[in-house]
């Protein structure tokens, strides 16, 4: 009991972590309670009620088709954050095993994967995501695929680096000499060792990926109307940015708060897990 308490107070004492948690609670509150608080359908078009200013009825006003902006942002939160997490989860699922195998087995397998990764790394990830999403055609599913395809390499590379330095250590050698299969060694000894790094990376990465999804939707490759993805809302609102800047300000703020939250949580977790290894930011 005592240790749990000290642990959690230590967590909270870290200002990054504290800020991150507060924002996360706030976001979660808006996401799950917002729909109940505001009784509007985010897709309901009401032309008699367009471009309204913020009021007690419409907390953030209405957009160019008379839809309630707050409802759309709440709906968009589930979508944007959910997709960001999904994309990261899939990238981790692909990148981590490849990194583990590549680092542990080495040799030709390692060379093969690393050349693929080097090849992909020569392109800036945003440009590559645009190219992939452009080829696949505009849709939310396709940008998630595009993002997974450009983000898995980051995990594979980091995990491989960690494994390379770990695999010469005694506990791995002991496992090897006691005739454990490579799969068992990787699963029981190496995976737990790289997990904290992966969690921290993933936490920060969710923010990055949300930015990427929004950016792709903003340029028209992602969410198609009327889906209230935040980037798509920015795109919708840009025609009105002189007349009614709030159409762009609110989705922009939503993106900013979410990304900030992810970064704070990531940094907080980093100091919590005490990761000091010179991991290269990719």
């Amino acid at each position, binding site marked *: 009991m005592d240790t749990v308490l000290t642990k959690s107070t230590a967590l909270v004492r870290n200002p990054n972590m504290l800020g991150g948690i507060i924002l996360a609670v706030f976001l979660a509150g808006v996401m799950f309670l917002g729909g109940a608080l505001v009784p509007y359908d985010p897709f309901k*078009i009401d032309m008699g009620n367009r471009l309204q200013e913020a009021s007690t009825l419409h907390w953030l006003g209405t957009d160019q088709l008379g839809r309630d902006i707050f409802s759309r942002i709440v709906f968009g939160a589930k979508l944007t954050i959910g997709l960001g997490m999904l994309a990261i989860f899939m990238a981790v699922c692909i990148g981590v095993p490849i990194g583990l195998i590549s680092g542990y087995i080495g040799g030709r397998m390692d060379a093969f994967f690393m050349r693929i990764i080097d090849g992909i790394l020569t392109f800036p990830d945003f440009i590559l995501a645009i190219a992939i999403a452009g080829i696949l055609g505009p849709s939310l599913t396709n940008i998630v695929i595009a993002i997974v395809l450009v983000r898995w390499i980051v995990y594979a590379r980091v995990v491989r680096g960690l494994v390379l330095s770990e695999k010469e250590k005694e506990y791995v050698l002991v496992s090897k000499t006691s005739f454990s299969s490579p799969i068992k060694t990787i699963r029981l000894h190496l995976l737990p060792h790289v997990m904290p790094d992966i969690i921290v990376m993933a936490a920060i990465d969710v923010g990055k990926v949300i930015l990427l999804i929004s950016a792709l939707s903003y340029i028209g490759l992602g969410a198609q109307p009327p889906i209230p993805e935040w980037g798509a809302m920015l795109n919708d609102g840009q025609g009105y940015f*002189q007349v009614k800047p709030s159409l762009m300000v609110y989705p922009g703020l939503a993106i900013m708060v979410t990304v900030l939250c992810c970064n704070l949580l990531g940094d907080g977790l980093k100091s919590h897990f005490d990761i000091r290894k010179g991991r290269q930011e990719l």
Partner: protein
Amino acid sequence: MIKKHVFMVLAVLLIFLTGCNNSGESENTAGTAEPNGTEEKSLTLLYSFPSKTIDPHQDAMGVRAGIAETLVRIDENLQIQPWLAESWEQIDERTWIFTIRDGVTFHDGTAVDGEAVKASFERALEVNNAVASSLKIESMEANGQEISFITTEENPALISELVHTNTSIVNVSADDISEQPLGTGPFQVADFTSESEIKLKKYNEYWDGAVNLDEVTINFNSDGNVRALALQTGEADIVYHLPPEALDPIEQDENLLVESISSLRVHFLLYNNKKPALQDVNVRKALDMLVNREISVTEIMNGHGTAANGPFHPDFNFAGDMEPESYDPERAAALLKEAGYETNENGMLEKDGEILELTLATYQGRPELPLMAQYIQGEAANIGIDINIITVEEIDSYLWEQQDEWDLATYSVLTAPRGDGGYFFNVAYMPEGSLNPGQINIPEINEITAELNVTANEEERIALKNMGVSIIREEAPQSYILHPHIIVGVNDRVKNWSPGSEEYYFITNEMDVE
């Protein structure tokens, strides 16, 4: 990491603030944009759709930019007037003789005579199939300043087809007609960057009076907001196709003028006749009734438009006299029921186990179209039709090359560009028409079009066109929504200029700046 994002946000906010301030500052910038001391008068026009080439036989910009001119032109009342041809005469059903004005020269100084005009037409017919099929020229003969056309069949529309910008007269001996065409207009090309910029300089030997401006720059930008801002900052003097939602700050600026003129254009929905669901006239009519034309005009166009009762502007005497189709979701639902669609447990319409799911293609080039698409999507969802919107970059190539993918598309076209609807019947309804990617093929309309093509009598033509329009209303092969106004922003330093509804003549010798 965090700092980076904070900076990004600050940068975005800064952009907002500067954007908002521009309306106030534009007074100064517009004033200082004029060079002091020098006598050079220059003007910048910003247009929405970029030209890949300025070959006058392939792109309208040749005539719009005042580089090339046609034999005849239309005036503000859509009446045909002489231009490079001072007179013409129809000898018999198939023979026309045009007399070319004396003293007209190409930009390289060579005189324009019958031979030069003939050579220009030969090239136009060769490089532009649409021109060839509308003119139907069998042979030409040049004799001094005269040129005679013999058509393959009776072609009463020949004279109005000669207004088309792609029939303009150029010197065919020019080295590079696609970038440096030599025309007869008040301005010659100084420099051209494809899809970006045309620089023009005054042609001193222009035949029709003095040219007031020394230099004209035409820029292209497909982003409506960028165009609106360019007008507010004084970067451009004339800006075409301002988005209706961006007009407020411009109207408040006393140095800027918004011209809103009714156009010969129509915004409409194309239905893909290859799709079984849309081959049913009840489905098409139901969709037609879901279009709220009144709200589209007042809200989406901010009043800068006219509700459409058919392809042609109601001011024309051949546009039919029906009222625009009224918005009626209940009747639409009834029609769909008649077509065999039942509402399933999810509230979606279903027929033979398949839900009514349609793909609606739209594009950003005309900013009001995606908005209409979303509006129609919302209305359709209310009665259980699932419409997916897809925003494409190049609508024309998409519609033709991916004919199996789309069901509906928002589109916009000049339906009576020369004050005559015959052209539109031919391109939009004939099975081989160049604006018929939905493969519409209605025998009655085909017959009317065929008859129209050989009818010279004006009254008979009007009657035929009215008949065509009423069949269009019955069959609803497309849904005509509204005739948008051409919204042009003009800096008040521009003198002697106003936009025309035909969108053919932008740069003139008379226009001037202070």
